[in-house]
């Protein structure tokens, strides 16, 4: 609902009888200029069409050699908004060689000088904050607030990376080896690194890695998802304006051919990957075979455990954002709603009531809570999961299929969906759906809830909603997940904390962001010194 009411109506309610007469006289003289903000109206798009995208290699925008192009679709409108080249291994190698060449000089650039480029970039990103966010909405479909939040996260990683002069410091111990023999450890950059990113966070995910790598003195190649290449294309123009030396940071668009070329090339020292568990495992194996550093983040099936003593209204509001934020396409999204004991009935009713009120539409409409899923294929896959849930005996109490969004007949929309009577053995309770589908599972107590979490091969995140300190402490202590939420449903580590999951949600040891990133992108060289 949007509304425009006449000032007369509103003012009349606030005025005395005499005042109303005066106001009526005043209004008679007024020129009426109606302006309506309809539900379907939205913020302006940055561009209608972005044309054929280029690669950014060695400090220049270059046409891809590739003859193969793929369409980039706006998932809300169904419009084709760009074409992305599927770059070849050969041009990927060119980017790697340029990065290696640039590294020789960049490595010798003092850290304090290196971070000045990041200060410039940070200012440019703040200036272009709204456009970066709107491009994300156009290509990904998420709601504008979510996109703004994502842009903020990307900037925060730049901000943390500017602390590299402190973060990268080594350590020294006088007489560390023996009397008169000192020992020190120096952190040194390694060379060329690269990231392979998924579709769900077009702006943020490359920023978990590359600012730290480059600030530490490495050079870097970003390969965005071919489904959402526009945000990085936009940001790379800002990187160009920030004046980073040629080859220090490059962008290569494409698909698995680019990814394989990055993983196979001997000059690439390490890979950061985010995506599905199957591909993460492949990346981990391949990088290990090729003697590279690797951090490979995979899938998830996150449980949100609700204890009987939770603050129910606040819990439900927070869970709605976890389950339905980014249309359930977050690796940190809630998937299973685990009701402990007698909270079940009231929790279910309130949650479904809230879910029904989620406004679905084009994310550039600021009143929209939830956008479409990324593609027609993703929509079909989610619908197949819903059908499987029904077939396996779960009770579909809110069905988001067949939702119609006015003005967007070609959008890939699925409404909030809720299954009740889900048991842990069902497919929808076990597999990552990556959509706005919630499975309510009843358990007797906290032990059973933790057992349920541990029965999953994934270990990305888990949350508990409770007012009990001991219950929260036990949950935090026992649950084997990389990210634990206590009365928080989206456990997204800030830039100065490490981020990754456990078990099949992550292959590697050093996580993204923060100090872990500094360790991933540097070598520790030990120097032992004695003077005769």
């Amino acid at each position, binding site marked *: 609902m949007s*509304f425009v009411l006449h000032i007369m109506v*509103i003012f009349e309610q606030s005025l005395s009888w005499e005042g109303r007469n005066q106001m009526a006289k005043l209004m008679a*003289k007024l020129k009426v200029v109606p*302006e309506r903000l309809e539900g379907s109206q939205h913020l302006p798009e940055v561009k209608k069409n972005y044309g054929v995208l280029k690669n950014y290699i060695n400090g220049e925008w270059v046409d891809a050699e590739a003859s193969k192009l793929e369409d980039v679709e706006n998932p809300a409108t169904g419009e084709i908004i760009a074409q992305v080249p599927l770059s070849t291994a050969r041009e990927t190698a060119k980017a790697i060689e340029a990065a290696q060449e640039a590294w020789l000089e960049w490595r010798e650039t003092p850290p304090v000088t290196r971070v000045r480029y990041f200060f410039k970039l940070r200012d440019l990103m703040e200036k272009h904050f709204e456009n970066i966010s709107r491009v994300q909405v156009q290509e990904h479909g998420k709601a504008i607030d979510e996109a703004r939040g994502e842009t903020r996260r990307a900037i925060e990683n730049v901000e943390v990376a500017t602390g590299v002069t402190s973060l990268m410091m080594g350590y020294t111990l006088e007489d560390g080896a023996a009397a008169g023999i000192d020992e020190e450890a120096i952190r040194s950059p390694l060379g060329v690194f690269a990231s392979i990113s998924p579709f769900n966070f077009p702006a943020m995910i490359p920023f978990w890695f590359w600012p730290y790598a480059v600030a530490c003195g490495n050079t870097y190649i970003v390969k965005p998802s071919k489904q959402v290449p526009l945000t990085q294309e936009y940001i790379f123009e800002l990187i160009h304006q920030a004046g980073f030396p040629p080859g220090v940071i490059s962008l290569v668009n494409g698909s698995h051919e680019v990814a394989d070329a990055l993983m196979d090339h001997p000059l690439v020292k390490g890979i950061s990957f985010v995506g599905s568990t199957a591909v993460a495992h492949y990346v981990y194996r391949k990088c290990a075979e090729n003697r590279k550093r690797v951090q490979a983040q995979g899938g998830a099936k996150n449980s949100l455990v609700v204890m009987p003593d939770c603050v129910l209204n606040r819990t439900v509001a927070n869970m709605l954002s976890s389950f339905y934020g980014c249309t359930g396409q977050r690796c940190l999204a809630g998937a299973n709603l685990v009701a402990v004991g007698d909270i079940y009935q009231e929790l279910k009713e309130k949650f479904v009531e*809230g879910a029904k*009120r989620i406004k679905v539409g084009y994310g550039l409409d*600021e009143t929209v809570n939830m956008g479409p899923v990324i593609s027609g294929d993703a929509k079909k896959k989610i619908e197949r999961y819903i059908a499987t849930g029904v077939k396996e005996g779960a009770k579909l109490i809110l069905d988001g299929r067949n939702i119609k969004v006015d003005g967007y007949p070609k959008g890939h929309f699925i409404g909030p969906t809720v299954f009740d009577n889900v048991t842990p053995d069902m497919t929808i309770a076990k597999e990552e759906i990556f959509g706005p589908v919630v499975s309510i599972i009843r358990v007797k107590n906290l032990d059973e809830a933790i057992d349920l979490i541990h029965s999953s091969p994934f270990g990305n995140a888990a949350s508990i909603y409770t007012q009990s300190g001991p219950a929260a402490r036990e949950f935090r202590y026992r649950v084997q997940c990389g990210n634990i939420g206590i009365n928080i449903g*989206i456990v997204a580590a800030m830039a100065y904390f490490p981020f990754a999951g456990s078990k099949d949600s992550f292959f590697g040891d050093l996580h993204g962001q923060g100090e872990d990133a500094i360790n991933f992108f540097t070598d520790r060289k030990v120097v032992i010194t004695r003077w005769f």
Partner: protein
Amino acid sequence: MVLKSSFPEITTFGSLIRFALELEKVATSLYEGSSKTYPNVAALPLLADLHRKRSQLLEHTRQQKLNEMILEPIYDLNGNDYALSPNGHSPSALKELIKMAEIIEDKSARFYSDSSRLAKSLLAESSRIFQKMSKENDDNKSKLKTIAS
């Protein structure tokens, strides 16, 4: 002077800020336009300036204070309680102008006060900003009373 406004429904943090920006737009336009009509009233351009700065503060808040971890849907604020829609007007007397301005300040004060209470559970930093803005609206009402007298 032509005042226009379009208030969205309040369902998200972004729409809450958009709503607030609309309130500021109406107030800025009213004071700006009136200051030309009544150049001897020194408070009018100052009030226009204040509301213009508040718009900047709101945009800054939207950009800097947002945390996607706690972007919960908003169901508890009914925009009808605070909306204004002065679809083009030119108050013919200072007294009428003051009356209109008082209503705008009053509705804004209530909007920011209620939003502040709501935002406390979502975005504590925004809550403090809204609280301060509500107080400013109350202060403005006092200034308007001085002009009227």
